[in-house]
């Protein structure tokens, strides 16, 4: 089962995990990645996530379909939040369920690597001193995405 959501509000980790195993007794493992706003000594206060409505949903659905095919998933969930999120707030939920753990674990890695460089989201940082900075894409993320072929 595919579940793709772009939303400003929070998501419920427990309910999302339940959904990944619901409807099939073949699920043997669920793997989940949750990304959140990282704070630090530089005084980051919040991130504002902008996206390209329409294209975002298309890209995420395509990624989820590819993961299901490639890793024989039973369930796949991608939830990405948009808008302003403070330090510590969850940003993204990636979940995969499969018969055996290897597929679910690999799918989760694949999905977050591809999502970071291929889905039309952009982060703008806001610091305690009022500075606003658009996050630059990292070369390491491009390389991680490219490794999946």
């Amino acid at each position, binding site marked *: 089962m595919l579940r793709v959501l772009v939303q400003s509000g929070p998501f419920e980790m427990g309910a999302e995990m339940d959904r990944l195993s619901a409807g099939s007794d073949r699920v043997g493992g669920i793997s989940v990645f949750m*990304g959140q706003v990282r704070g630090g000594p530089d005084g980051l206060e919040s991130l504002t*996530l*902008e*996206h*390209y409505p*329409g*294209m975002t949903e*298309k*890209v995420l659905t395509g990624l989820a379909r590819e993961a299901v095919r490639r890793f024989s998933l039973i369930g796949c969930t991608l939830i*990405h939040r948009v808008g302003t999120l403070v330090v510590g707030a969850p*940003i*993204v939920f990636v979940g995969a369920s499969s018969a055996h753990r290897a597929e679910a674990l690999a799918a989760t890695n694949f999905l*977050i690597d591809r*999502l*970071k*460089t*291929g*889905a*039309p*989201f*952009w*982060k*703008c940082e806001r610091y305690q001193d009022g500075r606003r900075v*658009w*996050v*630059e*894409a990292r070369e390491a*993320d*491009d390389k991680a995405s490219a490794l999946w072929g």
Partner: protein
Amino acid sequence: MAQDVTIFYFAALREQMGRESETVSMPAPSVTVETLVGELRRKDGVMDEVFAASPRLRVAINQTLATFQDTVRPGDELAFFPPMTGG
């Protein structure tokens, strides 16, 4: 209008351009993104400056990632944006 394309700008590029979208006329019925951008930059000093300073810009045609060598047709939806930083 049939000969028009809509262009969207996102993130830092949207702020630098000072607008989030616009409708432009096609210089010919079918041109590459590169040709269209060249035409627009000739007529728009702000766009020329912003695009010159943004060598890694990405383009999407009809909400699918494309290249500057791909073809634009009347009625298409174009979008330009910096490399993506989701997740």
